């Protein structure tokens, strides 16, 4: 593992020292069987991620970024290889334990937002708290605060189709953050946004990183990746390079 460099961009860019090991995958492969054909989405990926890291995963289309990300987010399981989250083997965990990790430890931000279309912004953000078992009053308060934090205090009653793309992504980020996860996983969070809105979203991640979150972002844009402190490049399901950002 290459520790993130302390040297960085001009400006108020801070790099926090890495904390405890939180994600460790070893020789992970993922196969998709499509009839007679077998697709190797991941061919043996080994990676360690510590708390307080800000990591970008890059690579050409089809290189396995999303596959890897879904696995890290405990949404998908590897065909072979070992995945330890917080030093606990994910393969041995029950469905409900995985649900718990998704609920409390990880905030996932999707490229396509994945908001419930019939629910307003507030209810979408409230959702993880419902599954966390929080009472109504506490939920509303936390969800409102999360929406205010992403600058959507005025849009709480809007449904996704009444919001712009950037606003939807902010709702999705608020939802990812509402339950105070320690790790934020974002799969092309700016992929569907124009570059200005994309920069705004990245500024939000910068802020979250500064506040002590661990952030992993998938992107194929160099500009976006430069926000991270460490870049892992994938090609054909293998890690091509893994280095700190200059």
């Amino acid at each position, binding site marked *: 593992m290459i520790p993130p460099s302390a040297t960085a961009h001009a400006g108020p860019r801070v790099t926090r020292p890495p904390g405890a090991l939180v994600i460790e995958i070893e020789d992970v492969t993922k196969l998709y069987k499509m009839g007679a054909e077998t697709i190797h989405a991941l061919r043996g990926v080994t990676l360690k991620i510590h708390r307080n890291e800000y990591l970008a995963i890059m690579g050409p289309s089809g290189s396995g970024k999303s596959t890897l990300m879904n696995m890290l987010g405990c*949404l*998908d399981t590897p065909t072979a290889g070992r995945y330890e989250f917080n030093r606990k083997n994910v393969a041995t965990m029950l*469905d409900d334990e995985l649900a718990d990790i998704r*609920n409390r430890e990880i905030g*996932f931000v999707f490229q396509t937002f994945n908001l419930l279309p019939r629910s307003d912004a507030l209810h979408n953000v409230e*959702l*993880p708290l419902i*599954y*966390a078992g929080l009472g109504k009053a506490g939920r509303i308060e936390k969800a409102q605060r999360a929406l205010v934090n992403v600058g959507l205090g005025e849009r709480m009653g809007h449904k996704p189709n009444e919001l712009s793309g950037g606003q939807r992504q902010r709702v999705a980020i608020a939802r990812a953050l509402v339950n105070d996860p320690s790790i934020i996983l974002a799969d092309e969070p700016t992929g569907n946004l124009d570059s200005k809105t994309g920069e705004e979203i990245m500024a939000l991640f910068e802020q979250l990183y500064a506040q002590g979150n661990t952030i992993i972002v998938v992107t194929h844009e160099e500009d976006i990746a430069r926000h991270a402190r460490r870049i892992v490049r994938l090609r054909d399901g293998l890690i091509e390079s893994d280095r700190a950002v200059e």
Partner: protein
Amino acid sequence: MLFGEIFRLAFASLTANKLRSSLTVLGIAVGVFSVIGVMTLINGMRSSIETGLNVLGANSFQITKFPPINFSDPWTRFRNRRDINSPQAERFKELMGDAAKVNLQINRNGLTVNVRERKTNPNVRLWGTDENYVTAFNFDVALGRNLGAEDVEHGRPVCLLGDEVVQKVFPDEDALGKLIRIGGQNYTVVGVLASKGTAFGGSPDNIVLTPITRFLAVYGRSWRSIGLNVQAPSQAELAETQERAIGMMRLVRGLAPEDANDFEVFSNESLIEAFNNIADIVAAGALIISAIALLASGVGVMNIMLVSVTERTKEIGIRKSIGAKKINILMQFLAEAVALSLIGGLVGVAFGVGGGNLVAFLMNTEITFPWLWTGIGLGVCGGIGVVFGLYPAWKAASLDPIEALRYE
């Protein structure tokens, strides 16, 4: 996740698909409706039959040509019986003598009573009867006098009015001694019956009594069979009196020892029993129909829930991706299925109770609310929701999060 939360969610998603939900609800409602409707009606009939028969008194029985309730025997068995005509009835009464009070009765319904410009609705029952009617049906004579033996003997055009008829045609004058007209015939009012004031619909008081001889003179003797009400002196002597009455009746009818009775003898208890037998059969039929309808609508619930799960695969993926456990998804869809069938059940109960009581009302029986069957109906509906909702809910809960998220 709290219970209220789950049901709020279920209703939200049911209202999102109003037409589809209502059609499924309708299926359940029909199933519940049929059983609740029939049970309501039967309950109403049973309680009014019981109250009605209690009026007859525990120590009386009836002799008629036809059985009052028949379900088991072919009609042809009774059709060829001879009518109980006036001479036979008179003879029977004479033969019974002091052993029992015999009341001859024959009636015609749907008549209008006219007094000058006033008239009743065409729903008055005119009884051709005798002096024993009043005691047989437990009436009191409020004003004037009862029918007498001479009235019957001479076929006098006199009458007693039921309270409801009095209210209609003599609202604020004394009825005694006045003339009324029924079907072009004049009758002089000699007495007024006290109101029984029971049940609604007013049937016990909506009557006019006239001597049976007069009745037969006006409406003809042929094609009429007279009913005989026999009151034993006490309940202890009921069986003995009944034996005797059957013997006398056979004598009057001129039956040979090997002939079967060509008349029916029945008491309150046998009537209630006969009614209960029929009610049980009807209830069983309604239950079977309901069971089939509910089974079919249960399949409908399952079908709709499977469609709903497929349609909302993405939503399930989203929920799982942010931490919904299996049980959360399972409960969400199960609650939806249960809510669907319970709403159907409630609609069915509402229409069943309403419809059953409407028919009961039209039949002048009592209005009732079948608590037991409502409870059973709703319980069964809840059960249907659980049983037929379980597989779709399980299917939803078992979806792989990432597969579900990818679903378009």
